[in-house]
């Protein structure tokens, strides 16, 4: 039961990463591409949370009525959780910046297709003419 959960977490996170990488290559719409890329970030976060998880453990918050040694052997590992908090916020801010740039570029090109909007610079010059 315990190992199963952790294995399932691993598979889920790898699946999210792979879905994201697939979207990055094969999806043409830029907003979908960005959505896909945010899944990579989520997969990495889930993986790191999975590291700290201890099957059958408790939430790592020490209340006064707990015995510290019992707590130490039963609580899950809190360091990865702290890292993931930072990483989630970074991911959201990156996403916001990307979407802002997309909105600006949409006004110029009038399409969301990557192969038009983000093509080679010399080809874009032809497009503008």
């Amino acid at each position: 039961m315990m190992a199963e959960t952790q294995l399932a977490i691993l598979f889920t996170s790898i699946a999210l990463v792979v879905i994201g990488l697939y979207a990055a290559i094969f999806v043409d719409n830029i907003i979908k591409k960005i959505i896909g890329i945010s899944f990579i970030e989520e997969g990495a976060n889930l993986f790191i949370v999975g590291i700290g998880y201890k099957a059958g453990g408790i939430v790592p918050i020490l209340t006064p009525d707990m015995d510290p040694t019992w707590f130490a052997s039963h609580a899950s590992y809190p360091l990865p959780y702290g890292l993931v908090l930072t990483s989630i916020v970074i991911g959201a801010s990156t996403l916001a910046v990307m979407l802002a740039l997309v909105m600006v570029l949409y006004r110029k090109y009038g399409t969301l297709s990557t192969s038009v909007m983000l093509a080679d610079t010399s080809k874009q010059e032809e497009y503008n003419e």
Partner: protein
Amino acid sequence: MIEFILMIITILSAILALIQKDLLKAAILTGFSGGALAVLFQILLAPDVALTQAIVGAAIVPVFIALAVKKTQRGDA
């Protein structure tokens, strides 16, 4: 058991978000995925991460995407 269901929801809504023709639906499905992930974090004994993920993944990110879709175009073309 519930964690397996949540994982399946996460992956399925991620895949569904990418095959939608309507970008607004894709945004909502991203929120689904983020929300399921938040509950999953709670089950994985990380309540603080779950709170952050619930706000960011299930509310802020879909709203950002929906706003971007509103300012650009809704169809996938």
